């Protein structure tokens, strides 16, 4: 287990380094931040000072060297836009996204497992068909469209929830509901399929033959065995939730890391982009580790 974690950490570091190199050099090609941050009538001297101050006059390779040097000492550089350490800006935004993601994924997991198990147990009934249809629609829906339709319906016409921003519990409802839909559809399908396979296996027949009741069969015998593929999808979807977060946070004006990234890209705030990439990558790495631990917890064969 420890060796595996070590190996994974090294290979993740290598891919992260590749990504940083790519983004660092490509982002310097997009243009000069001084044109964006200084007024249009700024003199050439002011531009020079600005570039000098932020080290943009050095050759790109030298800039990269400086950046790596600072990075090793835990310094992610300053945000150009906010004139504060980039890491602080990113972490502040990340907390918002993390809360959003954790709440959504918890709800999704519970709902998908319950509905999916019941659907598999009552396969072919009306409940099963409605659940399959819902999961199909959920998996096919464009989240940005659902978001704006929901805003028109629930915020503008009915006035139940605010259109955007943060502040009260009510502000969280629409973003969570929109983020909920796609992973719910996908995970539900996997839970149902996996439970169907498990319910058809010999040990369930044995349990039935012994006279075990329905409820213990679902929750004690099958669910645990059916969970392995489900956990894989949950992991994938949790990472993919960050994709949805970009869209949802932009539409709902939610100050998370997805919106921060879009804003920083548009404003050429390089240090923030890089810091955001690293923080996100670390979060995904930790989550994959958790998934592996969950595997080992559920399946004794993996515990070596």
């Amino acid at each position, binding site marked *: 287990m420890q060796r595996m974690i070590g190996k994974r950490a090294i290979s993740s570091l*290598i891919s992260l380094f590749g990504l940083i190199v790519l983004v660092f050099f*490509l982002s310097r090609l997009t243009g000069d931040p001084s044109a964006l941050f200084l007024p249009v009538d700024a003199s050439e001297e002011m531009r020079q000072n600005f570039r000098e101050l932020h080290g943009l006059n050095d050759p790109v390779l030298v800039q990269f060297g400086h950046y790596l040097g600072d990075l090793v000492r835990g310094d992610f550089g300053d945000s150009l836009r906010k004139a504060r350490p980039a890491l602080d800006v990113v972490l502040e935004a990340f907390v918002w996204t993390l809360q959003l993601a954790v709440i959504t994924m918890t709800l999704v997991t519970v709902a998908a497992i319950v509905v999916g198990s019941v659907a*598999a147990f009552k396969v072919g009934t009306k409940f099963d068909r409605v659940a399959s249809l819902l999961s199909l629609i959920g998996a096919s829906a464009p989240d940005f469209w659902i978001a704006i339709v929901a805003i028109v319906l629930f915020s503008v016409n009915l006035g139940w929830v605010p259109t955007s921003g943060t502040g009260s519990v009510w502000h969280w409802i629409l973003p969570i509901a929109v983020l909920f839909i796609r992973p719910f559809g996908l995970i539900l399908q996997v839970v149902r399929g996996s439970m169907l396979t498990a319910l*058809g296996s010999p040990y369930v027949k044995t349990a039935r033959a012994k006279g075990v009741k329905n409820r213990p069969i679902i929750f004690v015998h099958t669910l645990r065995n059916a969970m392995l593929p489900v956990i894989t999808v949950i992991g994938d979807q949790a990472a993919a939730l960050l994709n949805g977060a970009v869209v949802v946070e932009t539409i709902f004006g939610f100050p998370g890391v997805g919106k921060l990234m879009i804003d920083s890209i548009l404003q050429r705030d390089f240090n923030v982009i890089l810091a955001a990439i690293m923080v996100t990558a670390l979060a995904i790495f930790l989550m994959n580790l958790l998934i592996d631990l969950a595997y080992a917890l559920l399946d004794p064969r993996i515990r070596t």
Partner: protein
Amino acid sequence: MSATTAETTPAKPTPPAKRGYLGMLWADKFATFAAIFLIIVVFCALFGPLLLGDAASGQNLRARNAAPFTLERGFLYILGGDALGRPLLPRIVVAAQNTIMVAAGAVAASFLIGATLGLIAGYSRKILSEVIMRLADVIMSFPSLLLAVIVLYILEPSVGNLIIVLAITRIPIYLRTTRAEVLEVRERMFVQAAQVMGASTFRIVFRHILPVILPTLVTIATLDFAFVMLAESALSFLGIGIQPPEITWGLMVSQGRQYLTSAWWLAFWPGLVIILTTMSLNLLSSWMRVALDPTQRWRLEIGGKNA
């Protein structure tokens, strides 16, 4: 019921008359609808701009944000007009071309590259395979939409770049599936037989292994088409995908967003078309999963009711 019968091949007392793929498709009404809808969409994508290109860009300022469901301005305005008085129905038809082209291009490119690399990784020595898999890990290690956002901003958004970016983010899917399948198939008896008979590696991979794994890949590609379409729509919606005056469905939703409260139909119809298309792709993909698998095809052949 399907779970218990899935593992065992059913004993068929009287083998039913063989049905072709069309017959099997007809037996599943949902899949039939999906296929018909997709054929219409592809038709729009191919011929829409030719037939309705002028109508879609012609402005009629008296029809600005015209309400849908009335025929007083002619059939083309049945779904309403947009902010510049252009009819929505022809615009949706014309926008199908870019939407489908980007998705088809990205899926085709990632399919070809991913499957080829997967065949190599699955059937070659360790080092090469390791290198390919690590490359896939690099791409997989980061959310695809964020990656696309970053790269697109640097590359300048255009149809070609959009295809490249989306293709790159989807390559690992085909790569991993192909490799996993090859690793399993290469141990089977018929591959060993081919090796003993002296077949070349090229022949074994392309004539013996590829046909076995192709149905899986085609099913995944259908599903992935929907995913890529959604990704393109989201990027266009965020303003870093296709740029006006080119149109895609995602861009239309984005343009209609500012008129949401006064003219909901501007954003509603293109979104509905996206949802219908992705849903059709999902339905067709789950039908194909059964139809293309010889061990499960009997379910469709005996009537399709329990499929």
